């Protein structure tokens, strides 16, 4: 099993009981090593997930969304949407669920939770949030954040986010996550008190490391390329899908015009009248069927979008590795140069440039005592440096090991999820075709009766 990293205060102790079930969810996430990975189909958004520290199975759902008004940090009125998060614990014996916690959170709090997790679990591919603003919009869909369809899809996305965390073997044990689900007031303060913002690596530092690192693990370099490709290809796919949806909408809706005209025409026709009128009705049915069809497709797009955003999470892990590796390389370099300085001082040969060396050359020799003192300082520094290098090396190897384990877990999850998404796309197409056959068969009958 993977090691839980660093600070034990943030981790709840694992329950003394053995895990009751498989850590499955309808999304087919984190599977235990021994588990066969039998997936339950999630009904609606609720899925059962097992969690170590709750002693029982729990269900998490983001069940409602509500428009609220309040005052923001600058004391200005603002409108935002709040989401109701309900946690239920499930009795093992009879499967009945009891509501244990229920609180309201807004999107920014979800963001805070994620940013916290990113800092404290840099070796984990942290699940992404649903998009903040609607992108890849085709013309009928509103890009307005307050639009009810967008809010609904975001509600599902946020629920998905929580379920992903809850079914992750490591993230699920995090205390802040637990408090997110259970402690409504003061949670923000609690998160900020962890001081995670200070612990975060600066963007500049990370960028610097990316450019200067000499020997990153090749697997991470490959992973970075992969995540770039994934992001690029999914973006492209989503863009074209949106355009296709737009066109399809046009085709269906124009047929609706037939309905109106047929109806008016039928008024002047004696024999053809009835046939025209009822055919017109079917054209209306056809035209209005596209709304549901495209709404369903939007959910498919959301599934792809999640993996679009996962690409960034992958890159974050790569960046952390590069940073650690760079750190290590700098420390090693530093140590090597100190060792050399020490050697030179001891033997009297100058091979490396040092300011002290130069000044002594210019302003006169230093005394043997001074030299001894300097050698001693350097030796201490070298010792320290060697200890540090050793622990950094260890840290680095641990990181690579843990990160890679999570990446393997992620890859399996991704393959399962994307396969499922593509299959669900086929199912949607089939449903659309069946509806089309039915409505045109009806229309054809009306036409032939004219």
């Amino acid at each position, binding site marked *: 099993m993977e090691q839980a990293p660093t600070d034990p205060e943030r981790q709840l102790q694992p329950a003394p009981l053995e895990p009751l079930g498989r850590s499955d969810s309808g999304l087919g996430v984190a599977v235990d090593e021994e588990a066969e990975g039998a997936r339950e189909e999630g009904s609606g958004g609720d899925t059962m997930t097992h969690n170590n520290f709750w002693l029982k199975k729990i269900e998490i759902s983001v069940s409602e969304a509500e428009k609220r008004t309040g005052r923001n940090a600058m004391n200005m009125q603002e409108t935002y949407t709040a989401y109701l998060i309900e946690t239920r614990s499930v009795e093992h014996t009879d499967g009945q669920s009891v509501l244990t916690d229920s609180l309201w959170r807004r999107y920014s709090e979800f963001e805070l939770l994620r940013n916290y997790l990113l800092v404290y679990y840099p070796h984990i591919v942290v699940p992404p949030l649903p998009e903040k603003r609607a992108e890849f919009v085709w013309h009928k869909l509103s890009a307005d954040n307050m639009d009810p369809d967008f809010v609904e899809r975001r509600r599902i996305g946020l629920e998905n986010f929580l379920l992903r965390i809850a079914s992750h073997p490591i993230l699920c044990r995090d205390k802040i996550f637990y408090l997110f689900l259970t402690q409504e007031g003061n949670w923000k303060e609690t998160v900020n008190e962890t001081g995670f913002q200070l612990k975060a690596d600066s963007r500049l530092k990370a960028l610097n490391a990316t450019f200067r690192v000499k020997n990153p693990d090749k697997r991470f370099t490959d992973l970075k390329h992969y995540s770039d490709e994934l992001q690029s290809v999914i973006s492209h*796919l989503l863009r074209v899908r949106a355009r296709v949806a737009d066109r399809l909408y046009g085709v269906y809706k124009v047929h609706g015009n037939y309905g109106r005209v047929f109806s008016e025409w039928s008024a002047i026709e004696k024999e053809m009248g009835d046939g025209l009128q009822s055919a017109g009705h079917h054209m209306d049915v056809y035209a209005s069927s596209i709304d549901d069809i495209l709404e369903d497709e939007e959910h498919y797009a959301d599934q792809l979008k999640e993996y679009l955003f996962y690409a960034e999470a992958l890159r974050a892990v790569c960046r952390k590795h590069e940073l650690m590796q760079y750190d290590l390389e700098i420390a090693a370099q530093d140590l090597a140069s100190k060792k050399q300085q020490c050697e030179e001082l001891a033997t009297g040969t100058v091979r490396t440039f040092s300011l002290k060396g130069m000044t002594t050359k210019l302003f006169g020799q230093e005394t043997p005592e001074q030299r001894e003192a300097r050698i001693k300082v350097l030796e201490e520094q070298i010792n320290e440096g060697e200890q540090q290098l050793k622990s950094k090396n260890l840290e680095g190897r641990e990181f690579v090991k843990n990160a890679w384990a999570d990446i393997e877990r992620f890859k399996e999850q991704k393959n399962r999820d994307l396969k499922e998404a593509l299959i669900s796309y086929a199912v949607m197409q089939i449903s659309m075709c069946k509806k089309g056959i039915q409505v*045109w068969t009806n229309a054809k009958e009306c036409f032939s009766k004219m």
Partner: protein
Amino acid sequence: MDMNSFSPMMPTSPLSMINQIKFEDEPDLKDLFITVDEPESHVTTIETFITYRIITKTSRGEFDSSEFEVRRRYQDFLWLKGKLEEAHPTLIIPPLPEKFMVKGMVERFNDDFIETRRKALHKFLNRIADHPTLTFNEDFKIFLTAQAWELSSHKKQGPGLLSRMGQTVRAVASSMRGVKNRPEEFMEMNNFIELFSQKINLIDKISQRIYKEEREYFDEMKEYGPIHILWSASEEDLVDILKDVASCIDRCCKATEKRMSGLAEALLPVVHEYVLYSEMLMGVMRRRDQIQAELDSKVEALTYKKADADLLPEEIGKLEDKVECANNALKADWERWKQNMQNDIKLAFTDMAEENIHYYEQCLATWESFLTSQTNLHLEEASEDKP
């Protein structure tokens, strides 16, 4: 002999017209077969124009031979139509395709335009051939059989262009009078024509719009499949499923192309022909009104003793006959036209529905077989995993 609907030898009673309709429905009794094909471009110093080859096969005695091949240009068709209208002012003459493309195409000789026109001209001649009266028109026969120079010289006979124009102006002016005394049944007919014209024009626009939307959908779909192939290049475990999805999308794409061309074949030309028919009908109505107006003006003159009272009764008698013949011809042809219209519209829309059903059936089969293969794969993998 010049046969027209005023000749006492031509049956004008509706009953005999109906018998004629039955005659047409039995294809073995059809004795005149016409095809229009092989458009060819001709360049002279003055102009460039297209001619179409017209092949006529017939067993009719009055034709000198059983097979004819001639070349005609659009102008010749216009001439024929004019002659038919002249000879049979209250019969519903089939419409000709428009002189120019409506949407202001610069290039008159675009391939699609020529093909569309060729099909419409083919329809035009066949409709005439199927018409119980028009099929025996002498100018029609000459059009189908005469060599180029023969046709030219024949065209030069008959009233000149200027006098024809003069007639048109008088016709429009006097037809206004005819509207006032229009009998009830023709009022109804006129109402129908007006409403029908409105509706068929709308349907024409809607159908064209659908074609355009389907074309744009097809254009976007063409890009959609290949992206999945691109994606498969970076996903080792998803290569097969992504490639399968790509091929499904491509197959649906082809099905959509077929649906589009089906629409263009079956629906658009028929609807458009009836748009032109509706304009034709309004012209027929006007001509009927004009004939009536001639009678009415003479009757008026008699009432107010404006002109020579002696000659008037005889003239009026002739005109009354003329009006009656014209009305009867129109009534009978109207019934025939309506019947044809119903059949044609019904067929066109039924075909369109059939195209759509076929399209969805193809797509359904594609995705269902994809799903089946995925399920089979899954079962295979599951059985492999078992120790």
